[in-house]
């Protein structure tokens, strides 16, 4: 086994121990594992490669600089990383004109399809499978619930903006968000069996 494998075979939580010690190689490995997912999420949200790159860079630098804040008992490293990318993307959407540009675009917040990368590893194949699994659960939600969840989570719109766009009361939007998440939770659970 090569020395490189020594660190590469560590679980995320162990890699985070090294990152917390200020180890840049461990951080690089963390990026190798989750940078793609972070970039993909940012791109899905803002629909622009350059902005998605900026968001990813900001998010990962923030992860490096706030590495002591990671708490293993509050969720996986992947969830923590993607949560930070999501927050950064929302901030970007809300502070600049991306929203306006996208609102007037026919593309809306629909998924942006890129030619998929060649599946080079089992991990990548598993990630695609995982994506298909969650999308299938999302697909089972009633359209009106799925719509408000996607507008909020991927579109970065506030409940009042969504209410205005869909011409419905704020209470209805909030209710659909809650019901949709509950149904999604159950759907994911059922699929896992």
């Amino acid at each position: 086994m090569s020395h490189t494998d020594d660190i590469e075979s560590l679980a995320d939580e162990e890699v985070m121990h090294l990152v917390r010690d200020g180890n840049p190689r461990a951080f690089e490995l963390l990026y190798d594992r989750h940078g793609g997912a972070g970039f993909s999420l940012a791109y899905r949200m803002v629909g622009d490669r350059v902005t998605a790159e900026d968001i990813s860079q900001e998010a990962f630098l923030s992860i490096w600089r706030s590495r002591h804040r990671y708490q293993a008992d509050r969720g996986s490293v992947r969830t923590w990383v993607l949560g930070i990318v999501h927050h950064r993307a929302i901030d970007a959407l809300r502070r600049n004109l991306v929203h306006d540009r996208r609102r007037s675009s026919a593309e809306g917040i629909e998924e942006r399809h890129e030619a998929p990368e060649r599946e080079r590893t089992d991990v990548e194949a598993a990630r695609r499978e995982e994506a298909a699994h969650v999308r299938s659960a999302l697909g089972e939600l009633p359209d009106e619930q799925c719509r408000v969840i996607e507008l909020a989570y991927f579109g970065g719109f506030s409940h009042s903006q969504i209410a205005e766009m869909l011409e419905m009361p704020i209470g209805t939007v909030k209710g659909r968000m809650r019901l949709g998440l509950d149904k999604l939770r159950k759907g994911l659970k059922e699929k896992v069996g």
Partner: protein
Amino acid sequence: MSVERHQMHEEDVGAYLLRALSDVEHRRFEAHLEECPVCQDEVSRLRPAVNALPRSVYPMAPPSALKASLMAEVERDVRGREEAAGISHRPGASARVRRRLGGAFGSLRPTVAWVSASVVLLIGVVSGAAGLYALTDATGGEESSRSVVAQVDKTRVPFGSGSLLVPAGSREGTVLRVHGMPELESDSVYQVWVRRDGEVISQSLFHVGENGDGAAAVTEDLRDVDAVMVTRESAGGAKAPSEKPVLYVKL
């Protein structure tokens, strides 16, 4: 906490988790959350659904320039920190660590972590059939604890992961930690087993929280144990595994 105040906020849970509240509403809800166990439960219950959303995005490869630019920034940070702390390169301890970790750390600059390498490094993992190896700490040459990654049956627990901390010498029990495991119905439980010389021995039962995280004791002396496994069993546990393991740690 008043019932009225709870009713005022209970519909906000979904919007809060999706970050769809305004900044003011977000802060108000968080203040309410601190004192409302009902909303705390609801947030915990729904959070796994929100955590799953980014996983629905098909992965794309980021541009390689992004990593180069990010790592350059990180290296600058490290250099700046070292300069501020007046740390210079001390080859002794860190050189030993570098030899052990080799190329993976070849480009590392000496950090506080390396200089204080007498702290035992919790490193050393094996996955699958790659074989087990142990690293030693940088000063004493004693075997350190290591964490072994579990193999997971992705058809039954697609988001699951787990790792077992194996104490130095393996003479004592330890803890198996799991993440992303599905919550079981109340009539079922996860059961941990060890296998030694072909004999499978029950260790403990555990449940996972709403977020799929959990931990379980492995009480057996791990010497001569060749695997630690997790199965799903009826409440109260089983005398022998009733299914193939959903998690499997090969030792």
